[in-house]
């Protein structure tokens, strides 16, 4: 058992890494789902949302099967790069990223859907290619929604338990995040005060992220309105 500040720091590190892994993929898939119609869209939508409804333990098990030392991708990584992911803090970050991914995509998708595509058309006629139009029009106009999604995903990562314990284990100082520490502490007697401290910190972080996310969403709805002036 490591001390509380170490646990909190590790939790923040893993959640931040997980959110950063999520972001580019979430923007890409959010944009595809919001703007494009293509065969297999329903399948992509379903796959993206799968971690939301699957028990996280099952998600973690899949990750272990895929990235474990004898897993399909894991054995390749070990063979060619000498990398073993499972039971490292990176594994915890990947587990949290996968579980929080649907929340991130959802928020970004809605944010992009709310950007008037006619503004994008106008940008095209002004000489902006698809990509420039995306980062000069679509992204700034959906920015608050995107950040709100990121914060939501971050909050979800902080609370991640099931997939992490399957794929990354519960190793103090390496993969033991706040929820896992609470789980360990609860199995020991006389650690109630430490649990209480962790609980307070967890609730504060979660509330902070959610409140910030909500504020950004509201502001974004407001700025979204004058798109029809």
């Amino acid at each position, binding site marked *: 058992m490591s001390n509380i500040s170490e646990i909190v720091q590790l939790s923040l590190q893993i959640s931040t890494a997980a959110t950063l892994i999520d972001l580019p993929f979430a923007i890409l898939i959010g944009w595809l789902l919001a703007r494009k119609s293509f065969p297999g869209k329903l399948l992509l939508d379903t796959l993206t949302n799968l971690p939301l409804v699957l028990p996280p333990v099952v998600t973690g098990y899949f990750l272990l099967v895929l990235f474990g030392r004898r897993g399909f991708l894991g054995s390749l990584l070990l063979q060619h790069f000498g990398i073993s992911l499972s039971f490292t803090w990176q594994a915890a970050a990947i587990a949290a990223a996968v579980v929080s991914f649907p929340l991130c995509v959802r928020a970004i998708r809605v944010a992009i859907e709310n950007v*008037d595509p*006619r*503004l994008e*058309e*106008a*940008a*095209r*006629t*002004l*000489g*902006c*290619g698809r990509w420039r*139009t995306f980062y*000069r*029009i679509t992204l*700034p*106009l959906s920015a608050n929604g995107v950040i709100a999604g990121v914060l939501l995903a971050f909050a979800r990562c902080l609370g991640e338990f099931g997939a992490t314990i399957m794929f990354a284990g519960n190793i103090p100082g390496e993969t033991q995040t706040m929820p896992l520490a609470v789980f360990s502490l609860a199995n020991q007697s006389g650690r109630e005060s430490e649990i209480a401290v962790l609980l307070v910190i967890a609730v504060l972080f979660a509330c902070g992220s959610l409140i910030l996310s909500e504020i950004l969403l509201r502001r974004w709805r407001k*700025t979204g309105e*004058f*798109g029809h*002036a």
Partner: protein
Amino acid sequence: MPEKKLQADFSLRRNAFQLHISTSVTPEFTALFGPSGCGKTMTLKCLSGILKPNSGFIRFADQILFSRETGIFIKPENREIGHVFQDSRLFPHLNIEENLRFGINSRRPERQRFDFAQVVQILGLERFLKRRPDSLSGGESQRVAIGRALLASPRLLLMDEPLAALDLPAKISILNILRQIHQEFSLPIIYVSHDIATVLNFATDVLLMQAGKIIAAGKPFEVLSGFFSSSLYAGDVLQNIVQVRLVSGDRAAGLCLVATKNVELVLPFFEGSPGEIFYLDIPASEIILAMQKPQGLSARNILPGRVSKIQHIGERVFIEVNAGFDLRVEVMEKTLEMMNLQPASRVFLIIKATAFRKVT
């Protein structure tokens, strides 16, 4: 100016609507005219590349923009065709100056066709630069949209009819600015309209559309004449729109003196400062023609002029008279015979002060 010919023969199907455009024109200040729902907006979108036709080709100047056969489709960002939309589509997260500068390619200043300061000045946008788009009126937004399109250095400007909400004065002031831009920069402009008066008074030529097709092209009056005789426009009053400058006002006498480039007119009194520019609207049916200069009339405006053209449109007759500026006068067929009017005949136009309506 090199020949900037637009050649197009393409079709596009949208649900039950079939657009088939076949034309070859050299756009100047060209109106695309037709009833609502005839496919004007769709046509513009095909030209600017927002919509891709199902078949055929589009060619402007020396560039093929679209060809089904050879699989060419130039993307909108590479067409150098400006498109001003019905709704002005200003970017809400940018202020007016940032909106205007949006299409300026700073990496290729040698290709910049219009100067920022000049565009801002022509469109009268100086005092809006730091404002947000949502604080502008419809007409102001439309002017910003035009400026933004110009600063992206187009070779051809497409302009969709501003929203119906835009009143006639705002429409006219925009058309007037566009005409000035067309003349000063030799920029070909195609603008969509379903307002006969503005087409007749502003366009150099017109493409007439009906049910997804261009059914006629040519000089506005010739092309539109068929329209006046059709039942849809049979009751329409033909308007003359004249730009004038206020010379002086006499509140006590209840009169104003205004001037076109070379003719003075008397109007009922209205507020305004001398030198101010505005538009008058005179229905063609409210002008009286006389062969000799009349005496002892109550009408305030008696203008000498010469008949330049006589148009028969169904049952109706319109006489175009140059009285220092062009005016169209509607007369009865009988009158024409009685007065023995011919092109170049000398006539006097009699207009009551109250026949003028101030548009702005």
